[in-house]
């Protein structure tokens, strides 16, 4: 089956702190149709995200398909709060990269 990378389909793919103990991820699409296609493909779900990041599903605090913004959004618990010794990403701003390469089937 042919596929496209999520990076080619989404307008914005980002991560950022949501409070001191959570990192939230936003995947935003410019077109409604693209958003609906990615949603239907089920390539972005609690299960796929947990597998991609190698984390237990319980670490995902929220998973939301946010229609008003054509966006899929999920949030994970940090293992230790931001800024704890050894935390390499205090703002949580560089945790989204693995999402870029998610393959989305093209019908």
């Amino acid at each position, binding site marked *: 089956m042919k596929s496209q990378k999520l990076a080619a389909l989404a307008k*914005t793919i980002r991560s*950022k*702190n*949501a*409070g*001191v*103990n*959570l990192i*939230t991820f*936003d995947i*935003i699409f*410019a077109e409604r149709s693209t958003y609906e296609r990615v949603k239907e493909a089920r390539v972005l779900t609690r299960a796929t995200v947990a597998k*991609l*990041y*190698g*984390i237990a599903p319980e670490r995902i*605090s*929220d998973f*939301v398909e*946010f229609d*008003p*913004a*054509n*966006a899929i*959004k999920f*949030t994970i*618990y940090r*293992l*230790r*709060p*931001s*800024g*704890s*010794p*050894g*935390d*390499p*990403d*205090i*703002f949580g701003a*560089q*945790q989204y*990269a*693995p999402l870029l390469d998610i393959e989305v089937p093209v019908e």
Partner: protein
Amino acid sequence: MGLDRSVPRPLPLLSSFALLAGNGFMRSLRIICPNGHLGFAPIRVESFRLGVAARPDCIAADSGSDDVGPIPLGTDTSTSPRAWQTHDLEHMLLASRELRVPMIIGSAGDTGADSRVDLYVQIIKDLAAKHALPRFKLGYFYSEIGREDLRRRMRAGETVAGLEGYEALNEAELDATERIVAMAGVHPFVKLLEAGADVIIGGRSSDSCVFAAPAIHHGFAEDHAYYLGKVLECASFCAEPYGGKETVLGEITADAVLVTAMHPAQRCTVASVAGHAMYERSNPYFEHVAGGTLDMSDCHYEQVAPKTTRVSGAKFRRAEEFRVKLEGAGKIGERYVGMVGIRDPYTIAHVDEVMGWARDKVRERFGDAGYELCYTVYGRDGIMGEMEPMRDRPAHELCILVQGVAPTAEMAEEICMIGTRQMFYARLPDVKGSAGSVAFALDEVLRASPSYRWTINHTLRCDDPLELFPTHMTSAGI
């Protein structure tokens, strides 16, 4: 009941176009926001000037964030340079006095601690003197809560409830905490506006409340007042194309909020405004503030002009119990940092053994506990750690950041030095290069700011929305 008693109830709608406000009829209230985190990077003056030219009713910005980590709160410092703080405050103050409209700042100096409020109040006084501004009323409030005050409340039976996975606060964690700020809602801002403040410097406060307060003060419904705050709090982050520190203008009416980008090349679109509702929050539908929750589930977004989006349908639900968020930082120890590089592919494949060797040497000297030694391996999993899907495919060269944290600076320095230098002597069985396992760009370790952690990320019940936020009034200018 703990219900909010200080904020005026939303007044009844008198007609479809007018609201009774504290000082007369007001169809709409317009606020400009030039910066989502005042001081962190300077405002862009061009779009701010355009915002001022639109003659808003209020100029407001938030100046704080917990994004910067626990160190500024713990050490009672700002992460923003004073020159940048002064730059932004100067532009806002001059515009506010020229237009004769209030200027409101929340979470002064990054943390909103008492010393940061005092710093901003002094900057405002100095600027007023520098420009010989006509005398004006300068209101301010504090947000710190003392450790012993909190301990008394806990011993009296109050549960200090944890947020985001934190357990309820216990006295051991309280003892480990250096400084605590409470997150104000609209209440101290409204009180100071009622008292006639021309400029308000706030301690730690919810971003959205900086903007919601003047709308509530003028009698607009809480529903859209809090939404107005939500959409304005990060300035141009609600506009597109992406570009921070540009001014946006928000307008609240009887039944909606309109938001307009001021920069000539930016627009507030349905996508950019709805998209901003998600920013920095775990759930895009709800925003919790002291006293209630903004519910954006039924928001309706409509593009009404090329640069303007109209939003309606927001709901504010008052909480049954008045709870205030607390933030606290506790010191872990003094800190030193070192760094090394590795190029030999065999050594890269065995980098865990190299770090293990050095860690053992620290253990031989200092034992297993009472300090922290952290390695961050850039080129392998330095940024994402255990979540890095590619950590089994390291790059052709690595940089390793070493951090040593201990109760004294001397001990932290020695831990960091052993943890760094001993990597040079790591004994790998089949390594060809026997003259040193790592490359030093710096043959030294450097003192860093002390290490702190977020000890408190909790909520506390209060009887009175103002009890943690004492307000004061002074004056500035000539």
